[in-house]
């Protein structure tokens, strides 16, 4: 159980760019949140603040009511794990197994081999146990990167662009994987440009634009608000404008998926 809260957070980079300008939001334990917005909106900066890698220039980020200023990155990471956009940026060990054990050793776990086995099984990577992390495919690398963090079971997982460079089957696998994580009671926060993936995996969406939260709420409400989506330079899932044309005003989560939408379209066709 972990609660992440940003209170009027500002962040400026050294060269004077204000990446975040007064962001306030609270992520409750067990939520699945998609953080979305155009490039340079401040998404990565925001989750780096959640993880303590960056400290706010103004305002405060609280992890279980403790300010990130007062605790080390390692202490925060134990609770709030982060998976970076490029998995290659973290692999250094000779084997997949060793790669997973690294974090566990840093945190001083005793049951390392058991946890490594679990993480390998969870990410369906058992057969690569003794292989080099660099020999894996793009999708496998991403799963390994997530598994290296999942191994110490943080209460929340922040994932930067999980679907970049992934083909369809890898995405499907990843979506199931994330739902599995969530069903274990973990908070999942992802940054993504992929609206379909977000609709499939998350229940809440936070839209950022130029360092400000412009939308925050249930994902179906956010995605069906076409003006809002456009203001954050996002294309809604194809199904939304279509259903809008068919006269749908109230969107439910199910309507973002094929099955429920199909029923409505068939009904409309009969009319």
């Amino acid at each position, binding site marked *: 159980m972990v609660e992440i809260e940003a209170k009027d957070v500002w962040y400026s980079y050294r060269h004077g760019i204000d990446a975040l300008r007064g962001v306030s939001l609270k992520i409750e334990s067990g939520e699945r949140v998609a953080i979305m917005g155009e490039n340079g909106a401040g998404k990565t900066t925001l989750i780096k603040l959640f993880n303590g890698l960056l400290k706010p220039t103004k305002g405060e980020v609280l992890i279980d009511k403790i300010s990130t200023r007062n605790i080390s990155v390692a202490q925060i990471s134990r609770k709030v794990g982060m998976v*970076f956009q490029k998995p290659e940026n*973290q692999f250094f060990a000779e084997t997949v197994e060793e790669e997973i054990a690294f974090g566990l050793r*840093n*945190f001083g776990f005793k049951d390392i081999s058991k946890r490594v086995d679990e993480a390998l099984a969870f990410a369906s990577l058992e057969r690569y146990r003794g292989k080099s992390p660099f020999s894996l495919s793009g999708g496998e690398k991403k799963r390994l990167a997530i598994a290296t*963090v999942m191994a110490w079971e943080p209460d929340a997982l922040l994932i930067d662009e999980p679907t970049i460079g992934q083909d369809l089957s890898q995405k499907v696998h990843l979506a199931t994987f994330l739902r599995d994580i969530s069903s274990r009671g973990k908070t999942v926060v992802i940054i993504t440009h992929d609206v379909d993936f977000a609709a499939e995996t998350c229940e809440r969406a936070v839209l950022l634009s130029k360092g400000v939260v412009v939308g925050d709420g249930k994902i179906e409400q956010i995605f069906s608000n076409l003006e809002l989506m456009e203001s954050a330079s996002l294309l809604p899932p194809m199904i939304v404008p279509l259903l809008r044309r068919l006269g749908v005003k109230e969107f439910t989560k199910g309507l973002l998926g094929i099955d429920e939408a199909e029923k409505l379209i068939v009904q409309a066709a009969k009319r």
Partner: protein
Amino acid sequence: MMALEGFRFRRGESFIHRSDPRAKFLLSFAFMMMAIAFVKLEFLLLIFTIQIAILANGRCLKDWLRSLKGLIPLIILIIAAQLLVSWSWVSAATYSLRFVVITSTMSWFLLTTSPDDLGLSLEQVGLPSDISFAFTMAIRFVPVISQEFQSVYDAQRSRGLELEKGSFIQRIRKYVPIIVPVFIETIRRTYEIADAMEVRAFGAKPKRTRLNTLIMRPSDWAISLIAVLLLVGTVCLYLFNIKVPLINV
């Protein structure tokens, strides 16, 4: 990585920015040779003051200071080693100042010389274009690699790596998880760039022509002349073991 900030080109319009890279190189080389040849506190202070003036002219004092901050651990190491060996504050100050002078020399040269100009001047000095190109690329990628180092460092910190903890040896070993990914990524990038260059027909024509060429202005000749005189002077004093007060006595 802060240390690298002071070696990264910043565009500018100052006198020193506009000076010919060949002249600038000669001058910075002369300063470096002097700092290596004469280990005398007063003399080093003089060179140091001149360098500050150059940096001020180029409006890059801030960047230089930032890189100096990054070098503090090394400076402390030099001071400690000197104190240990000679037990003299003067020699500790002298040797650490010499280090600062040498790095500052490279710093103002690289801060005010664009990598393109640098490559161009190498070529005009007569180096084969392949080699000058490789040189330009190396400099051009310093900030990229430095950024990458930072992201890898962040990624490993998120996995519980704490560089600040442990004994000296342990701390050095902790750099492995950072250095390995940076190396691998760099090597991989090298291959990619090589391919990208080849598809754009790099090296298709042995003799390349240039859109811009460097021209020495009178002020550049003056700088070069000063630099050559300083170099000749340094070599003479050093070779013939001539003692001059405040320089090497």
